[in-house]
Protein backbone atom coordinates (compact mmCIF):
# COMPACT_ATOMS: atom_id res chain seq x y z
CA UNK A 1 0.00 0.00 0.00
CA UNK A 2 0.92 3.66 -0.28
CA UNK A 3 2.13 5.33 2.95
CA UNK A 4 -0.80 7.74 3.54
CA UNK A 5 -3.24 4.83 3.64
CA UNK A 6 -1.67 3.54 6.86
CA UNK A 7 -3.85 5.73 9.09
CA UNK A 8 -6.92 4.72 7.14
CA UNK A 9 -6.18 0.99 7.18
CA UNK A 10 -5.29 1.10 10.87
CA UNK A 11 -8.49 2.88 11.89
CA UNK A 12 -10.62 0.60 9.76
CA UNK A 13 -8.95 -2.43 11.31
CA UNK A 14 -7.37 -3.80 8.13
CA UNK A 15 -3.78 -4.06 9.32
CA UNK A 16 -1.96 -5.41 12.34
CA UNK A 17 0.51 -3.75 14.72
CA UNK A 18 3.83 -5.15 13.49
CA UNK A 19 5.58 -4.89 16.87
CA UNK A 20 3.42 -7.81 17.99
CA UNK A 21 5.62 -9.97 15.78
CA UNK A 22 8.87 -8.04 15.28
CA UNK A 23 10.63 -6.22 18.13
CA UNK A 24 10.51 -2.41 17.85
CA UNK A 25 14.32 -2.14 18.26
CA UNK A 26 14.78 -4.05 15.07
CA UNK A 27 12.86 -1.35 13.16
CA UNK A 28 14.71 1.47 14.90
CA UNK A 29 18.05 -0.10 13.99
CA UNK A 30 17.17 -0.81 10.39
CA UNK A 31 14.94 2.00 9.07
CA UNK A 32 15.83 5.66 8.54
CA UNK A 33 14.14 7.84 11.14
CA UNK A 34 11.80 9.79 8.84
CA UNK A 35 10.73 6.66 7.04
CA UNK A 36 9.96 4.97 10.35
CA UNK A 37 7.95 7.98 11.53
CA UNK A 38 5.92 7.74 8.35
CA UNK A 39 4.82 4.16 9.03
CA UNK A 40 4.10 4.81 12.70
CA UNK A 41 0.49 5.63 13.53
CA UNK A 42 -0.80 6.19 17.05
CA UNK A 43 2.61 5.16 18.37
CA UNK A 44 2.44 1.76 16.68
CA UNK A 45 4.46 0.57 13.72
CA UNK A 46 1.81 -0.51 11.22
CA UNK A 47 3.84 -1.24 8.10
CA UNK A 48 7.39 -1.61 6.90
CA UNK A 49 8.78 0.46 4.01
CA UNK A 50 10.32 -1.30 1.02
CA UNK A 51 11.63 1.88 -0.58
CA UNK A 52 11.40 5.64 -0.61
CA UNK A 53 11.01 8.25 -3.31
CA UNK A 54 12.80 11.42 -4.37
CA UNK A 55 12.12 14.25 -6.81
CA UNK A 56 14.26 16.16 -9.29
CA UNK A 57 14.12 18.83 -11.95
CA UNK A 58 15.22 17.25 -15.22
CA UNK A 59 16.37 19.74 -17.86
CA UNK A 60 16.84 19.04 -21.56
CA UNK A 61 20.21 20.74 -22.15
CA UNK A 62 19.91 21.13 -25.92
CA UNK A 63 16.59 22.88 -25.58
CA UNK A 64 17.98 25.10 -22.82
CA UNK A 65 20.94 26.07 -24.99
CA UNK A 66 18.75 26.74 -28.03
CA UNK A 67 16.58 29.06 -25.94
CA UNK A 68 19.54 30.75 -24.28
CA UNK A 69 18.60 29.51 -20.81
CA UNK A 70 21.43 29.40 -18.27
CA UNK A 71 21.36 26.21 -16.20
CA UNK A 72 21.36 26.21 -12.39
CA UNK A 73 24.86 26.50 -10.94
CA UNK A 74 25.28 22.93 -9.77
CA UNK A 75 23.69 20.20 -11.83
CA UNK A 76 24.36 16.51 -12.37
CA UNK A 77 25.18 14.91 -15.65
CA UNK A 78 26.69 11.62 -16.66
CA UNK A 79 30.25 12.66 -15.70
CA UNK A 80 29.55 14.02 -12.25
CA UNK A 81 31.09 12.28 -9.27
CA UNK A 82 28.60 12.69 -6.46
CA UNK A 83 30.02 13.15 -3.01
CA UNK A 84 28.18 14.22 0.10
CA UNK A 85 29.69 17.70 -0.24
CA UNK A 86 28.57 17.92 -3.85
CA UNK A 87 25.03 16.87 -2.95
CA UNK A 88 24.84 19.72 -0.44
CA UNK A 89 25.99 22.34 -2.97
CA UNK A 90 23.62 20.83 -5.51
CA UNK A 91 20.70 21.09 -3.12
CA UNK A 92 21.50 24.68 -2.30
CA UNK A 93 21.64 25.78 -5.94
CA UNK A 94 18.04 24.73 -6.64
CA UNK A 95 16.00 27.11 -8.81
CA UNK A 96 13.07 28.99 -7.39
CA UNK A 97 9.69 28.29 -9.04
CA UNK A 98 9.93 31.75 -10.55
CA UNK A 99 13.23 30.89 -12.23
CA UNK A 100 11.71 27.63 -13.46
CA UNK A 101 8.76 29.51 -14.94
CA UNK A 102 11.01 32.05 -16.68
CA UNK A 103 13.10 29.26 -18.19
CA UNK A 104 9.97 27.38 -19.24
CA UNK A 105 8.59 30.46 -21.02
CA UNK A 106 11.81 30.75 -23.00
CA UNK A 107 11.97 27.07 -23.90
CA UNK A 108 8.34 26.72 -25.04
CA UNK A 109 8.35 26.51 -28.82
CA UNK A 110 6.16 26.38 -31.89
CA UNK A 111 8.60 24.78 -34.32
CA UNK A 112 6.69 25.03 -37.59
CA UNK A 113 4.77 28.23 -36.93
CA UNK A 114 1.30 26.67 -37.17
CA UNK A 115 0.30 28.23 -33.82
CA UNK A 116 0.25 24.80 -32.16
CA UNK A 117 2.88 24.52 -29.44
CA UNK A 118 5.22 21.67 -30.35
CA UNK A 119 7.51 21.80 -27.33
CA UNK A 120 6.12 22.73 -23.94
CA UNK A 121 8.32 24.37 -21.32
CA UNK A 122 7.63 22.42 -18.16
CA UNK A 123 5.81 19.34 -16.97
CA UNK A 124 5.26 18.32 -13.36
CA UNK A 125 5.04 14.57 -13.42
CA UNK A 126 1.94 13.32 -11.58
CA UNK A 127 -0.45 15.94 -12.91
CA UNK A 128 -2.75 17.34 -10.25
CA UNK A 129 -1.77 14.76 -7.63
CA UNK A 130 -1.26 15.45 -3.95
CA UNK A 131 2.02 13.56 -3.69
CA UNK A 132 3.52 15.66 -6.45
CA UNK A 133 2.07 19.08 -5.69
CA UNK A 134 2.17 19.23 -1.90
CA UNK A 135 5.48 21.21 -2.03
CA UNK A 136 3.69 24.06 -3.87
CA UNK A 137 2.08 24.87 -0.52
CA UNK A 138 4.55 23.08 1.70
CA UNK A 139 7.47 25.22 0.57
CA UNK A 140 5.78 28.19 2.25
CA UNK A 141 4.81 26.23 5.34
CA UNK A 142 1.33 25.16 4.20
CA UNK A 143 -0.23 22.20 6.01
CA UNK A 144 -3.17 20.29 4.57
CA UNK A 145 -5.06 18.79 7.47
CA UNK A 146 -5.55 19.31 11.22
CA UNK A 147 -3.32 17.27 13.56
CA UNK A 148 -6.26 15.01 14.50
CA UNK A 149 -6.94 14.45 10.80
CA UNK A 150 -10.65 15.30 10.83
CA UNK A 151 -10.77 18.66 9.05
CA UNK A 152 -8.96 20.76 6.48
CA UNK A 153 -10.51 24.00 7.73
CA UNK A 154 -7.76 26.22 9.08
CA UNK A 155 -5.19 24.39 6.93
CA UNK A 156 -6.02 23.79 3.28
CA UNK A 157 -8.10 26.99 3.24
CA UNK A 158 -5.08 29.22 4.02
CA UNK A 159 -3.80 31.82 1.49
CA UNK A 160 -0.67 29.77 0.80
CA UNK A 161 -2.81 27.02 -0.76
CA UNK A 162 -4.88 29.46 -2.82
CA UNK A 163 -1.55 30.76 -4.15
CA UNK A 164 -0.39 27.22 -4.82
CA UNK A 165 -3.54 26.35 -6.81
CA UNK A 166 -3.28 29.62 -8.73
CA UNK A 167 0.40 29.05 -9.50
CA UNK A 168 -0.30 25.56 -10.82
CA UNK A 169 -3.34 26.66 -12.82
CA UNK A 170 -1.44 29.60 -14.32
CA UNK A 171 1.22 27.24 -15.68
CA UNK A 172 -1.49 25.82 -17.95
CA UNK A 173 -3.78 28.78 -18.55
CA UNK A 174 -1.90 32.08 -18.27
CA UNK A 175 1.59 31.02 -19.31
CA UNK A 176 0.69 27.90 -21.31
CA UNK A 177 4.02 26.26 -20.49
CA UNK A 178 2.58 23.03 -19.03
CA UNK A 179 1.41 20.10 -21.13
CA UNK A 180 -2.39 20.23 -21.47
CA UNK A 181 -2.77 16.52 -22.20
CA UNK A 182 -1.06 15.63 -18.91
CA UNK A 183 -4.44 14.80 -17.34
CA UNK A 184 -5.43 12.17 -19.87
CA UNK A 185 -5.20 8.59 -18.66
CA UNK A 186 -1.88 7.00 -19.54
CA UNK A 187 0.03 10.21 -20.28
CA UNK A 188 3.54 8.84 -20.07
CA UNK A 189 5.67 11.64 -18.62
CA UNK A 190 9.18 10.12 -18.92
CA UNK A 191 8.79 8.90 -22.49
CA UNK A 192 7.26 12.23 -23.56
CA UNK A 193 10.26 13.94 -21.99
CA UNK A 194 12.64 11.64 -23.83
CA UNK A 195 10.72 12.24 -27.08
CA UNK A 196 11.17 15.98 -26.61
CA UNK A 197 7.51 16.93 -26.04
CA UNK A 198 8.61 19.31 -23.31
CA UNK A 199 11.86 20.82 -22.04
CA UNK A 200 11.86 20.36 -18.26
CA UNK A 201 10.29 17.81 -15.96
CA UNK A 202 9.81 17.93 -12.23
CA UNK A 203 9.59 14.23 -11.55
CA UNK A 204 10.52 11.18 -9.53
CA UNK A 205 13.94 9.66 -9.08
CA UNK A 206 12.39 6.46 -10.43
CA UNK A 207 12.86 8.00 -13.91
CA UNK A 208 16.61 8.59 -13.47
CA UNK A 209 17.77 5.41 -15.09
CA UNK A 210 15.41 5.55 -18.04
CA UNK A 211 16.06 9.21 -18.80
CA UNK A 212 19.82 9.23 -18.38
CA UNK A 213 20.20 6.11 -20.50
CA UNK A 214 18.13 7.60 -23.31
CA UNK A 215 19.78 9.33 -26.20
CA UNK A 216 19.19 12.91 -25.04
CA UNK A 217 21.34 15.51 -23.35
CA UNK A 218 19.96 15.90 -19.81
CA UNK A 219 21.05 17.37 -16.51
CA UNK A 220 19.45 16.79 -13.14
CA UNK A 221 18.87 19.81 -10.88
CA UNK A 222 17.38 19.97 -7.40
CA UNK A 223 13.61 20.27 -6.82
CA UNK A 224 12.43 23.92 -7.08
CA UNK A 225 11.13 25.99 -4.15
CA UNK A 226 9.46 29.37 -3.63
CA UNK A 227 11.79 32.33 -3.02
CA UNK A 228 9.89 33.28 0.14
CA UNK A 229 9.85 29.71 1.40
CA UNK A 230 12.11 26.74 1.95
CA UNK A 231 12.78 23.69 -0.15
CA UNK A 232 10.37 20.83 0.53
CA UNK A 233 10.12 17.69 -1.54
CA UNK A 234 7.64 14.83 -1.89
CA UNK A 235 8.63 11.61 -0.23
CA UNK A 236 7.35 8.19 0.74
CA UNK A 237 6.53 5.19 -1.37
CA UNK A 238 5.26 1.65 -1.06
CA UNK A 239 5.04 -0.07 2.29
CA UNK A 240 3.84 -3.50 3.35
CA UNK A 241 1.66 -4.37 6.31
CA UNK A 242 0.05 -7.54 7.62
CA UNK A 243 -3.67 -8.15 7.18
CA UNK A 244 -5.59 -8.41 10.43
CA UNK A 245 -7.89 -11.08 9.02
CA UNK A 246 -5.08 -13.55 8.28
CA UNK A 247 -4.61 -16.60 10.49
CA UNK A 248 -2.08 -16.38 13.33
CA UNK A 249 0.28 -18.80 11.56
CA UNK A 250 0.18 -16.82 8.35
CA UNK A 251 0.79 -13.57 10.21
CA UNK A 252 3.88 -15.05 11.81
CA UNK A 253 5.16 -16.28 8.46
CA UNK A 254 4.44 -12.93 6.84
CA UNK A 255 6.25 -11.09 9.64
CA UNK A 256 9.27 -13.32 9.22
CA UNK A 257 9.42 -12.63 5.51
CA UNK A 258 8.76 -8.90 5.97
CA UNK A 259 11.54 -8.69 8.52
CA UNK A 260 14.01 -10.26 6.10
CA UNK A 261 12.78 -8.29 3.08
CA UNK A 262 12.68 -4.79 4.58
CA UNK A 263 14.92 -4.94 7.68
CA UNK A 264 17.82 -7.33 7.07
CA UNK A 265 21.01 -6.17 5.34
CA UNK A 266 20.79 -9.05 2.92
CA UNK A 267 17.11 -8.62 2.01
CA UNK A 268 17.22 -4.86 1.52
CA UNK A 269 20.30 -5.15 -0.67
CA UNK A 270 18.70 -7.83 -2.80
CA UNK A 271 15.53 -5.73 -3.18
CA UNK A 272 17.51 -2.62 -4.06
CA UNK A 273 19.68 -4.36 -6.61
CA UNK A 274 16.55 -5.80 -8.22
CA UNK A 275 14.33 -2.73 -8.30
CA UNK A 276 16.75 0.17 -7.94
CA UNK A 277 14.51 2.64 -6.14
CA UNK A 278 15.72 4.86 -3.34
CA UNK A 279 15.94 2.64 -0.24
CA UNK A 280 14.42 3.32 3.17
CA UNK A 281 16.82 1.11 5.11
CA UNK A 282 19.69 2.79 6.99
CA UNK A 283 22.11 0.11 5.93
CA UNK A 284 21.32 0.50 2.24
CA UNK A 285 21.40 4.30 2.40
CA UNK A 286 24.84 4.07 3.99
CA UNK A 287 25.99 1.59 1.35
CA UNK A 288 24.67 3.81 -1.40
CA UNK A 289 26.52 6.85 -0.07
CA UNK A 290 29.88 5.19 0.59
CA UNK A 291 30.31 1.96 -1.35
CA UNK A 292 32.39 2.40 -4.52
CA UNK A 293 30.10 -0.09 -6.21
CA UNK A 294 27.48 2.68 -6.44
CA UNK A 295 29.87 5.40 -7.62
CA UNK A 296 28.91 4.85 -11.23
CA UNK A 297 26.27 6.96 -12.90
CA UNK A 298 23.24 6.85 -12.95
CA UNK A 299 22.96 4.94 -9.68
CA UNK A 300 25.27 7.46 -8.01
CA UNK A 301 22.69 10.17 -8.64
CA UNK A 302 20.58 8.60 -5.92
CA UNK A 303 23.00 10.09 -3.42
CA UNK A 304 21.04 13.23 -4.19
CA UNK A 305 17.97 11.36 -3.03
CA UNK A 306 19.74 10.60 0.22
CA UNK A 307 20.41 14.31 0.61
CA UNK A 308 16.73 15.06 -0.04
CA UNK A 309 15.41 12.52 2.42
CA UNK A 310 17.68 13.94 5.11
CA UNK A 311 17.08 17.64 4.38
CA UNK A 312 13.95 18.54 2.47
CA UNK A 313 11.49 15.61 2.47
CA UNK A 314 8.01 16.31 3.86
CA UNK A 315 5.52 13.44 4.20
CA UNK A 316 1.89 13.49 3.20
CA UNK A 317 -0.90 14.27 5.68
CA UNK A 318 -1.60 11.64 8.31
CA UNK A 319 -5.35 11.07 8.58
CA UNK A 320 -7.74 8.16 8.26
CA UNK A 321 -9.70 10.33 5.81
CA UNK A 322 -6.75 10.55 3.42
CA UNK A 323 -8.72 9.18 0.42
CA UNK A 324 -11.27 12.00 0.79
CA UNK A 325 -8.60 14.67 1.13
CA UNK A 326 -6.56 13.23 -1.71
CA UNK A 327 -9.60 13.30 -4.03
CA UNK A 328 -10.45 16.90 -3.12
CA UNK A 329 -6.86 18.10 -3.48
CA UNK A 330 -6.60 16.49 -6.93
CA UNK A 331 -9.89 18.05 -8.01
CA UNK A 332 -8.86 21.57 -6.98
CA UNK A 333 -5.52 21.48 -8.81
CA UNK A 334 -6.89 19.68 -11.86
CA UNK A 335 -9.84 22.06 -12.21
CA UNK A 336 -7.57 25.09 -11.89
CA UNK A 337 -5.31 23.67 -14.60
CA UNK A 338 -8.36 23.25 -16.83
CA UNK A 339 -9.39 26.86 -16.61
CA UNK A 340 -11.59 27.02 -13.50
CA UNK A 341 -10.98 30.08 -11.34
CA UNK A 342 -8.40 28.89 -8.75
CA UNK A 343 -10.28 30.35 -5.80
CA UNK A 344 -13.52 28.70 -6.87
CA UNK A 345 -11.73 25.42 -7.55
CA UNK A 346 -10.19 25.24 -4.07
CA UNK A 347 -13.35 26.52 -2.32
CA UNK A 348 -15.43 23.80 -3.97
CA UNK A 349 -12.88 21.11 -3.18
CA UNK A 350 -12.72 22.09 0.51
CA UNK A 351 -16.51 22.06 0.70
CA UNK A 352 -16.57 18.57 -0.86
CA UNK A 353 -13.91 17.24 1.52
CA UNK A 354 -15.69 18.58 4.59
CA UNK A 355 -19.09 17.35 3.38
CA UNK A 356 -17.79 13.86 2.63
CA UNK A 357 -15.98 13.52 5.96
CA UNK A 358 -18.95 14.76 7.98
CA UNK A 359 -21.33 12.34 6.25
CA UNK A 360 -19.55 9.19 7.32
CA UNK A 361 -18.37 10.12 10.79
Amino acid at each position, binding site marked *: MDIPLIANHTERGYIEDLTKYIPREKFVDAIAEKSLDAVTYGGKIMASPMQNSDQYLYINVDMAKAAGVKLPEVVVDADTVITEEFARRWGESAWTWDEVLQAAMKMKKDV*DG*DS*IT*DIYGLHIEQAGRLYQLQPLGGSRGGKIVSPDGTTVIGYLDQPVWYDAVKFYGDLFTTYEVEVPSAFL*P*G*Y*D*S*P*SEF*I*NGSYAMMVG*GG*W*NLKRILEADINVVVAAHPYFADGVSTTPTGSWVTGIAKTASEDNKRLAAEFLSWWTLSDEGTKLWYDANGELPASKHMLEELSTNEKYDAFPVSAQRLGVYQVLNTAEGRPVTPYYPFINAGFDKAFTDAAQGVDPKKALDEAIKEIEKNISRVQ
Partner: protein
Amino acid sequence: MIRRTTTLQHFLFHILSILFGLIFVVPIIWSLIASFRPENLVFAGLSPLSIKALIPLPFTMKNFIGVFTNDVFSSALVNTLVVAAVTVVCGVIINAAAGFAFATINFVGKGILFSIVLSSFLMPPDVLVIPTYNLVDSLGLIDTRIALILPVVGNGMVIFMFIQFFSQVPKALREAALIDGASSLQVLSKIYLPLTLPTMIGASLILFLAQWEAFLWPLVVSRSIENGMIQIALSTFTQQYGTLWGMKLAAASLLCFIPLILLMPLQRYYIASVVGTALKE
Protein backbone atom coordinates in the same frame (compact mmCIF):
# COMPACT_ATOMS: atom_id res chain seq x y z
CA MET B 1 -33.92 14.65 -65.11
CA ILE B 2 -34.14 11.27 -63.44
CA ARG B 3 -30.63 10.33 -64.56
CA ARG B 4 -29.12 13.48 -63.12
CA THR B 5 -30.70 12.92 -59.74
CA THR B 6 -29.35 9.40 -59.71
CA THR B 7 -25.81 10.58 -60.38
CA LEU B 8 -26.09 13.15 -57.66
CA GLN B 9 -27.55 10.55 -55.31
CA HIS B 10 -24.75 8.20 -56.20
CA PHE B 11 -22.21 10.83 -55.40
CA LEU B 12 -23.81 11.78 -52.08
CA PHE B 13 -24.25 8.15 -51.13
CA HIS B 14 -20.58 7.38 -51.64
CA ILE B 15 -19.30 10.54 -49.97
CA LEU B 16 -21.41 10.03 -46.87
CA SER B 17 -20.74 6.30 -46.67
CA ILE B 18 -17.02 6.76 -47.06
CA LEU B 19 -17.05 9.44 -44.38
CA PHE B 20 -18.85 7.20 -41.89
CA GLY B 21 -16.75 4.22 -42.92
CA LEU B 22 -13.51 6.10 -42.37
CA ILE B 23 -14.60 7.31 -38.94
CA PHE B 24 -15.33 3.72 -37.97
CA VAL B 25 -12.38 2.01 -39.50
CA VAL B 26 -9.50 4.46 -39.00
CA PRO B 27 -9.17 4.15 -35.20
CA ILE B 28 -8.91 0.38 -35.17
CA ILE B 29 -6.67 0.22 -38.23
CA TRP B 30 -4.39 2.86 -36.74
CA SER B 31 -4.26 1.03 -33.42
CA LEU B 32 -3.39 -2.24 -35.13
CA ILE B 33 -0.63 -0.65 -37.20
CA ALA B 34 0.77 1.37 -34.29
CA SER B 35 0.96 -1.72 -32.13
CA PHE B 36 3.34 -3.29 -34.64
CA ARG B 37 5.81 -0.43 -34.07
CA PRO B 38 8.32 -0.32 -31.21
CA GLU B 39 7.24 1.39 -28.00
CA ASN B 40 9.00 4.71 -28.66
CA LEU B 41 7.45 5.05 -32.15
CA VAL B 42 3.85 4.10 -31.32
CA PHE B 43 2.65 7.68 -31.77
CA ALA B 44 4.86 8.37 -34.78
CA GLY B 45 3.23 10.66 -37.30
CA LEU B 46 0.46 11.85 -34.99
CA SER B 47 1.82 15.26 -34.05
CA PRO B 48 2.36 16.78 -36.47
CA LEU B 49 0.06 14.56 -38.48
CA SER B 50 1.68 12.62 -41.33
CA ILE B 51 1.27 9.41 -43.30
CA LYS B 52 3.91 7.80 -41.09
CA ALA B 53 1.11 7.16 -38.60
CA LEU B 54 -0.28 4.44 -40.89
CA ILE B 55 2.95 2.65 -41.78
CA PRO B 56 3.94 -0.24 -39.50
CA LEU B 57 7.68 0.39 -39.74
CA PRO B 58 10.03 -0.49 -38.14
CA PHE B 59 8.03 -3.68 -37.74
CA THR B 60 8.04 -5.57 -34.44
CA MET B 61 5.97 -8.28 -32.78
CA LYS B 62 7.31 -7.32 -29.37
CA ASN B 63 4.11 -5.67 -28.20
CA PHE B 64 1.95 -8.67 -29.01
CA ILE B 65 4.41 -11.04 -27.38
CA GLY B 66 4.47 -8.72 -24.39
CA VAL B 67 0.69 -8.77 -24.15
CA PHE B 68 0.53 -12.55 -24.09
CA THR B 69 3.35 -12.88 -21.58
CA ASN B 70 1.88 -10.21 -19.30
CA ASP B 71 0.50 -12.03 -16.24
CA VAL B 72 -2.42 -9.74 -15.59
CA PHE B 73 -3.64 -9.55 -19.16
CA SER B 74 -3.11 -13.17 -20.15
CA SER B 75 -4.87 -14.51 -17.06
CA ALA B 76 -7.70 -12.03 -17.65
CA LEU B 77 -7.96 -13.28 -21.22
CA VAL B 78 -8.19 -16.88 -20.06
CA ASN B 79 -10.63 -15.98 -17.31
CA THR B 80 -12.83 -13.96 -19.66
CA LEU B 81 -12.97 -16.82 -22.15
CA VAL B 82 -13.89 -19.28 -19.41
CA VAL B 83 -16.49 -16.96 -17.92
CA ALA B 84 -17.94 -16.20 -21.35
CA ALA B 85 -18.03 -19.89 -22.33
CA VAL B 86 -19.82 -20.91 -19.14
CA THR B 87 -22.22 -18.00 -19.50
CA VAL B 88 -23.03 -18.90 -23.10
CA VAL B 89 -23.58 -22.61 -22.45
CA CYS B 90 -25.56 -22.24 -19.22
CA GLY B 91 -27.32 -19.13 -20.45
CA VAL B 92 -28.59 -20.71 -23.65
CA ILE B 93 -29.83 -23.80 -21.81
CA ILE B 94 -31.67 -22.16 -18.94
CA ASN B 95 -33.07 -19.24 -20.91
CA ALA B 96 -34.25 -21.56 -23.64
CA ALA B 97 -35.96 -23.70 -21.01
CA ALA B 98 -37.69 -20.65 -19.57
CA GLY B 99 -38.68 -19.42 -23.02
CA PHE B 100 -40.07 -22.86 -23.82
CA ALA B 101 -42.22 -22.84 -20.68
CA PHE B 102 -43.56 -19.37 -21.35
CA ALA B 103 -44.38 -20.17 -24.96
CA THR B 104 -45.92 -23.60 -24.67
CA ILE B 105 -47.21 -24.28 -21.15
CA ASN B 106 -50.17 -22.79 -19.32
CA PHE B 107 -49.36 -22.21 -15.68
CA VAL B 108 -50.34 -20.25 -12.59
CA GLY B 109 -48.62 -16.86 -12.29
CA LYS B 110 -47.59 -16.70 -15.94
CA GLY B 111 -48.62 -13.05 -16.27
CA ILE B 112 -46.63 -11.88 -13.26
CA LEU B 113 -43.52 -13.85 -14.10
CA PHE B 114 -43.66 -12.64 -17.67
CA SER B 115 -43.81 -9.00 -16.67
CA ILE B 116 -40.89 -9.56 -14.30
CA VAL B 117 -38.81 -10.97 -17.15
CA LEU B 118 -39.88 -8.13 -19.42
CA SER B 119 -39.08 -5.40 -16.91
CA SER B 120 -35.74 -7.01 -16.06
CA PHE B 121 -34.47 -6.43 -19.55
CA LEU B 122 -35.82 -2.93 -19.81
CA MET B 123 -33.88 -2.00 -16.66
CA PRO B 124 -30.26 -1.32 -17.68
CA PRO B 125 -28.02 -3.68 -15.68
CA ASP B 126 -25.43 -1.09 -14.61
CA VAL B 127 -27.88 0.80 -12.42
CA LEU B 128 -28.04 -2.19 -10.07
CA VAL B 129 -24.31 -2.83 -9.85
CA ILE B 130 -23.89 -1.25 -6.42
CA PRO B 131 -26.76 -3.07 -4.67
CA THR B 132 -25.79 -6.27 -6.47
CA TYR B 133 -22.34 -5.80 -4.99
CA ASN B 134 -23.95 -5.66 -1.53
CA LEU B 135 -25.89 -8.82 -2.28
CA VAL B 136 -22.86 -10.72 -3.60
CA ASP B 137 -20.88 -9.49 -0.60
CA SER B 138 -23.44 -10.90 1.83
CA LEU B 139 -23.33 -14.21 -0.08
CA GLY B 140 -19.55 -14.21 0.45
CA LEU B 141 -18.90 -14.32 -3.29
CA ILE B 142 -16.79 -11.18 -3.81
CA ASP B 143 -13.83 -11.85 -6.10
CA THR B 144 -15.03 -15.20 -7.40
CA ARG B 145 -15.73 -16.47 -10.88
CA ILE B 146 -19.27 -17.37 -9.86
CA ALA B 147 -19.95 -13.73 -9.05
CA LEU B 148 -18.91 -12.79 -12.57
CA ILE B 149 -21.12 -15.43 -14.17
CA LEU B 150 -24.37 -15.70 -12.18
CA PRO B 151 -25.80 -12.18 -12.62
CA VAL B 152 -25.33 -12.36 -16.40
CA VAL B 153 -26.60 -15.90 -17.06
CA GLY B 154 -30.30 -15.29 -16.43
CA ASN B 155 -31.10 -12.85 -19.22
CA GLY B 156 -34.57 -11.45 -19.92
CA MET B 157 -33.73 -10.53 -23.48
CA VAL B 158 -32.56 -14.04 -24.34
CA ILE B 159 -35.66 -15.56 -22.71
CA PHE B 160 -37.74 -13.24 -24.85
CA MET B 161 -35.94 -14.38 -27.99
CA PHE B 162 -36.72 -17.99 -27.19
CA ILE B 163 -40.36 -17.24 -26.36
CA GLN B 164 -40.73 -15.80 -29.84
CA PHE B 165 -39.06 -18.72 -31.44
CA PHE B 166 -41.05 -21.36 -29.57
CA SER B 167 -44.36 -19.66 -30.20
CA GLN B 168 -43.70 -19.66 -33.94
CA VAL B 169 -43.27 -23.43 -34.14
CA PRO B 170 -46.62 -24.98 -35.09
CA LYS B 171 -48.53 -26.39 -32.15
CA ALA B 172 -49.58 -29.41 -34.20
CA LEU B 173 -46.00 -30.62 -34.32
CA ARG B 174 -45.75 -30.66 -30.56
CA GLU B 175 -49.14 -32.22 -30.00
CA ALA B 176 -48.39 -35.00 -32.41
CA ALA B 177 -45.25 -35.79 -30.48
CA LEU B 178 -47.06 -35.70 -27.14
CA ILE B 179 -49.66 -38.12 -28.44
CA ASP B 180 -46.86 -40.44 -29.42
CA GLY B 181 -45.94 -40.48 -25.74
CA ALA B 182 -42.95 -38.16 -25.74
CA SER B 183 -42.23 -36.22 -22.57
CA SER B 184 -41.92 -32.42 -22.52
CA LEU B 185 -38.17 -32.76 -22.21
CA GLN B 186 -38.06 -34.97 -25.28
CA VAL B 187 -40.24 -32.53 -27.19
CA LEU B 188 -37.83 -29.79 -26.29
CA SER B 189 -34.67 -31.65 -27.24
CA LYS B 190 -35.88 -33.63 -30.24
CA ILE B 191 -38.25 -31.24 -31.97
CA TYR B 192 -37.48 -27.71 -30.94
CA LEU B 193 -33.77 -27.54 -30.42
CA PRO B 194 -32.73 -28.66 -33.91
CA LEU B 195 -34.97 -25.95 -35.37
CA THR B 196 -33.62 -23.33 -33.07
CA LEU B 197 -30.03 -23.11 -34.25
CA PRO B 198 -30.25 -19.52 -35.58
CA THR B 199 -31.83 -18.33 -32.32
CA MET B 200 -29.16 -20.15 -30.35
CA ILE B 201 -26.35 -18.55 -32.32
CA GLY B 202 -27.89 -15.12 -31.77
CA ALA B 203 -28.36 -15.77 -28.07
CA SER B 204 -24.79 -17.04 -27.75
CA LEU B 205 -23.42 -13.91 -29.37
CA ILE B 206 -25.45 -11.66 -27.09
CA LEU B 207 -24.28 -13.51 -23.98
CA PHE B 208 -20.69 -13.68 -25.21
CA LEU B 209 -20.55 -9.96 -25.90
CA ALA B 210 -22.16 -9.22 -22.52
CA GLN B 211 -19.19 -10.87 -20.80
CA TRP B 212 -16.55 -9.77 -23.29
CA GLU B 213 -17.50 -6.11 -22.84
CA ALA B 214 -18.28 -6.29 -19.10
CA PHE B 215 -16.74 -3.33 -17.31
CA LEU B 216 -18.53 -1.89 -14.29
CA TRP B 217 -19.45 -5.22 -12.70
CA PRO B 218 -15.94 -6.75 -12.80
CA LEU B 219 -14.58 -3.35 -11.77
CA VAL B 220 -16.39 -3.58 -8.43
CA VAL B 221 -16.49 -7.33 -7.86
CA SER B 222 -13.10 -8.67 -9.03
CA ARG B 223 -9.90 -8.10 -7.08
CA SER B 224 -7.35 -10.80 -7.83
CA ILE B 225 -5.49 -11.42 -11.05
CA GLU B 226 -7.11 -14.82 -11.68
CA ASN B 227 -10.58 -13.26 -11.66
CA GLY B 228 -9.67 -10.31 -13.85
CA MET B 229 -11.73 -9.47 -16.92
CA ILE B 230 -10.10 -8.12 -20.06
CA GLN B 231 -11.74 -4.70 -20.36
CA ILE B 232 -10.43 -3.88 -16.88
CA ALA B 233 -7.11 -5.63 -17.46
CA LEU B 234 -6.38 -3.14 -20.26
CA SER B 235 -5.46 -0.69 -17.54
CA THR B 236 -2.60 -2.93 -16.43
CA PHE B 237 -0.45 -1.35 -19.14
CA THR B 238 -0.86 2.00 -17.43
CA GLN B 239 1.31 1.80 -14.36
CA GLN B 240 2.36 4.24 -11.72
CA TYR B 241 5.51 5.17 -13.56
CA GLY B 242 4.24 5.28 -17.12
CA THR B 243 2.14 3.66 -19.81
CA LEU B 244 3.27 0.90 -22.16
CA TRP B 245 1.30 2.27 -25.09
CA GLY B 246 2.55 -0.28 -27.59
CA MET B 247 1.22 -3.15 -25.51
CA LYS B 248 -1.92 -1.27 -24.57
CA LEU B 249 -2.83 -0.76 -28.22
CA ALA B 250 -1.87 -4.33 -29.10
CA ALA B 251 -4.21 -5.54 -26.36
CA ALA B 252 -6.95 -3.15 -27.51
CA SER B 253 -6.60 -4.46 -31.06
CA LEU B 254 -6.97 -8.02 -29.82
CA LEU B 255 -10.09 -7.03 -27.90
CA CYS B 256 -11.59 -5.71 -31.14
CA PHE B 257 -10.59 -8.43 -33.53
CA ILE B 258 -11.72 -11.45 -31.54
CA PRO B 259 -15.40 -10.38 -31.40
CA LEU B 260 -15.25 -8.99 -34.94
CA ILE B 261 -14.05 -12.34 -36.27
CA LEU B 262 -17.05 -13.95 -34.57
CA LEU B 263 -19.53 -11.24 -35.49
CA MET B 264 -18.78 -10.68 -39.14
CA PRO B 265 -19.72 -14.14 -40.44
CA LEU B 266 -22.55 -14.53 -37.92
CA GLN B 267 -23.94 -10.98 -38.07
CA ARG B 268 -27.15 -12.21 -39.72
CA TYR B 269 -28.08 -14.24 -36.62
CA TYR B 270 -26.99 -11.56 -34.21
CA ILE B 271 -29.06 -8.90 -35.93
CA ALA B 272 -32.08 -11.14 -36.33
CA SER B 273 -32.02 -11.96 -32.61
CA VAL B 274 -31.46 -8.44 -31.35
CA VAL B 275 -33.98 -6.91 -33.68
CA GLY B 276 -36.48 -9.72 -33.27
CA THR B 277 -36.96 -9.07 -29.58
CA ALA B 278 -37.62 -5.44 -30.23
CA LEU B 279 -39.90 -5.35 -33.20
CA LYS B 280 -42.09 -8.40 -32.99
CA GLU B 281 -44.23 -8.44 -29.92
